């Protein structure tokens, strides 16, 4: 998606936006022979990171609320069975969002295709698993 624009822009206006960076370069990113991507794509990547991070925060908050605010269930450790996987999933999503941001930024600089994200699959499986736990707890509690 962003393969061509940075190159063409820098050719049109070689002095614009190609100054040495003011902030540290991300670790593991080779600077040489890499073009700065169109700023719109950099912003889009940043917003994607933030959206995943908010998802992680929501999962953590939901997990904490489940363990602390739900009434006691009939099943021992029922609230923790619900809340702890959500907190763990939030932590995984947070860590993975940083890795994905780095990978996207690197791919855009090199003009490579963007790497596929595993996060939607992980998130879906996690939420379905927690839903299944909730159904099982409800069924066990109604006996």
């Amino acid at each position: 998606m962003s393969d061509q624009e940075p190159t063409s822009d820098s050719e049109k206006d070689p002095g614009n936006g190609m100054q040495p960076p003011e902030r540290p370069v991300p670790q593991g990113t080779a600077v040489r022979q890499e073009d700065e991507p169109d700023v719109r794509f950099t912003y889009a990547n940043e917003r994607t990171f933030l959206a995943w991070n908010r998802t992680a925060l929501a999962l953590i908050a939901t997990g904490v609320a489940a363990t602390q605010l739900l009434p006691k269930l009939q099943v021992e450790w029922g609230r923790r069975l619900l809340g702890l996987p959500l907190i763990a999933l939030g932590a995984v999503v947070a860590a993975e969002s940083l890795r994905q941001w780095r990978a996207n930024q690197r791919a855009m600089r090199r003009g490579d295709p963007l790497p596929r994200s595993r996060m939607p699959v992980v998130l879906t499986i996690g939420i379905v698993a927690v839903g299944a736990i909730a159904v099982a707890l409800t069924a066990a509690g109604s006996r």
Partner: protein
Amino acid sequence: MSPVGTTSDPAEAGLAGERTVLAWNRSGLAVVVCVAVLLRHVWPLHGTDQEVALGLIAGAVVVWAIVLAVLTLSSGTRGAGVPHGANVFRLMTAGTLLLAVVGFLASFAVS
């Protein structure tokens, strides 16, 4: 990372920057809510504690907004903000992971 990068349409880049600043603000609010949910357990609110808690939450929002503004202005102004450096993303991720660890530990403190 270049602070500005290149684009063929300055207006569109400005709007993209504005959307990004809004996204940072939403993330800040999400952090505040998450911390508030965590504190709700360790700090049962009685009497004037509610006003104190509300004040703390409001203060946290103001601090977040100020930090965001300083980061934006110090990294080369472009009106609606500029892409942030990798350290900001690391800090955000580390903070989220810290909240997860605290939430994990707090869940075992439930009576």
